[in-house]
């Protein structure tokens, strides 16, 4: 059974086939957020604080932290933001950068076991990122592209993922600590982008036996009602076997879709999470004949 264990000093999150889908909050990322980028570059992290808290409140199990700002000191900012977010919440973090020095500085200050985002199949990335992941005993996201680009052939993307997993094992990183991102492309530009992902994810789960993640919002780029599409995509990706995604927990459509998919996949045992979220509140008037039992103490089962 493939389980990826991530942690903060006080909380552990497990990504796995028998676990509810892991929601990784995407909001702490200045890419395409002009205001946030400008503030972060000046060391003003107030918006980061708010994004961290609202995402955890909305049900994020982990938070992605990215500080990719042009012309800024990304290693310094990423480390500062990681420390700040860890002081505010206890969810484990995803350390997200394409700059190896930034990953290094963030890993150095992180408390617990983070997920490093990311390594690709490109030779120089494999050689620089994997030793870091090993050094800090972290887990890593493996993006299925290499020097030749992002193939539209699912078999090629699967082969790249397999190569990364094998290289990670050479560095002493266990297969369960490599979470593969099959790469989600905009469906508005590539009509088969959805089917590509579902087919790769199925193979990653049944053949390579790894956990999977993705930047789910990419799917709806350039289209209206993005959250509706994101929700359908996530539902179908979970059906195909995906076990986590970097997405926005702030949209009710998305969280409802994920919770429903957990019910369908049998990872929300006895539908408990679903019921507790959606049980209609009962008013005193309607309570009627049940009123006498109002103060009955419910016996609780031991949480799984």
């Amino acid at each position, binding site marked *: 059974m493939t389980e990826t264990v991530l942690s903060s000093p006080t909380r552990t999150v497990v990504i796995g086939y028998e676990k509810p889908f892991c929601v990784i909050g995407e909001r702490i990322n200045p890419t395409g957020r002009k205001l946030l980028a400008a503030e972060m570059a000046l060391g003003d992290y107030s918006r980061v604080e708010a994004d961290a808290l609202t995402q955890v409140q909305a049900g994020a199990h982990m938070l992605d932290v990215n500080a990719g700002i042009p012309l800024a000191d990304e290693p310094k900012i990423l480390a500062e933001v990681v420390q700040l977010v860890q002081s505010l919440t206890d969810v484990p973090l995803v350390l997200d950068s394409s*700059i190896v020095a930034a990953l290094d500085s963030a890993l150095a200050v992180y408390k617990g076991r983070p997920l490093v985002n990311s390594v690709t199949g490109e030779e120089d990335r494999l050689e620089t990122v994997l030793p870091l992941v090993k050094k800090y005993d972290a887990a890593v996201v493996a993006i299925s592209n290499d020097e030749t680009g992002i193939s539209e052939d699912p078999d090629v993307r699967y082969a790249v993922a397999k190569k990364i997993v094998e290289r990670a094992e050479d560095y002493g990183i266990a297969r369960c600590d490599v979470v593969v991102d099959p790469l989600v492309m905009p469906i508005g530009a590539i009509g088969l982008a959805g089917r590509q992902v579902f087919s790769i994810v199925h193979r990653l789960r049944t053949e390579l036996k790894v956990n999977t993640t993705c930047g789910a919002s990419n799917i709806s780029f350039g289209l209206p009602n993005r959250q509706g599409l994101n929700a359908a995509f996530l539902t179908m990706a979970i059906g195909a076997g995906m076990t986590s995604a970097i997405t926005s927990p702030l949209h009710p459509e998305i969280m409802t879709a994920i919770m429903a998919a957990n019910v369908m996949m049998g990872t929300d045992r006895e539908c408990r999470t679903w019921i507790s979220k959606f049980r209609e509140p009962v008013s005193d008037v309607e309570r009627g004949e049940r009123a006498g039992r109002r103060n009955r103490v419910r016996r609780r089962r031991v949480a799984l």
Partner: protein
Amino acid sequence: MENIDEIDLSALSDDELVEQMHDDLYDGLKEEIEEGTHILLDRGWEPYAVLQDALVEGMRIVGIDFRDGILFVPEVLMSANAMKGGMAILRPLLAETGAPTVGKMVIGTVKGDIHDIGKNLVAMMLEGAGFEVINLGINNPVENYLNALEEHKPELLGMSALLTTTMPYMKVVIDTLVEQSIRDDYIVVVGGAPLNEEFGNAIGADAYCRDAAVAVETCKELVAEMRAAN
């Protein structure tokens, strides 16, 4: 069944036909655009007038509605594809008549970066607006850009990057143009998710383009300015 009124394009007056072609471009109807292009040419229209009045004007409208969030990416791709159908007919004729071109761009994703969906979208939108586009693909070292500039002699050089690690390479390319004293021969525009205007200015580009619609407008303006100055 959808009720589709068959329109006989050849029965329309010139003005009606041009307007119908604007609608057909908007709806991404490639065959209809090709047919309309042939009809106008048969009626003695100059290829350049067909390009400007029917195609470029039609795509201008598409561009505005894309910018304003009325049209979406798949629709714009269909419009651009329909435009390309018309352009394929006009291009050899335009070359023969020596008509002025809308502009030419060499575009590519920089070295170390393999992302090309956004860049391809820009290329298609530019082609849709009548530009000739030489698309160098992904992972381009400075030599690729230099060779393509030498070979194709475009007005515009476009560079794209999707990573904070690869976008500094745009400066390497621009610095090389400066070293070779050919920087001022070209309009350099840059784009990609992690970029911003400040970065574009810092590396010495002429413009940063936020998205494909902005890229088209910016390139048109800059080419017009360049031509007015010469």
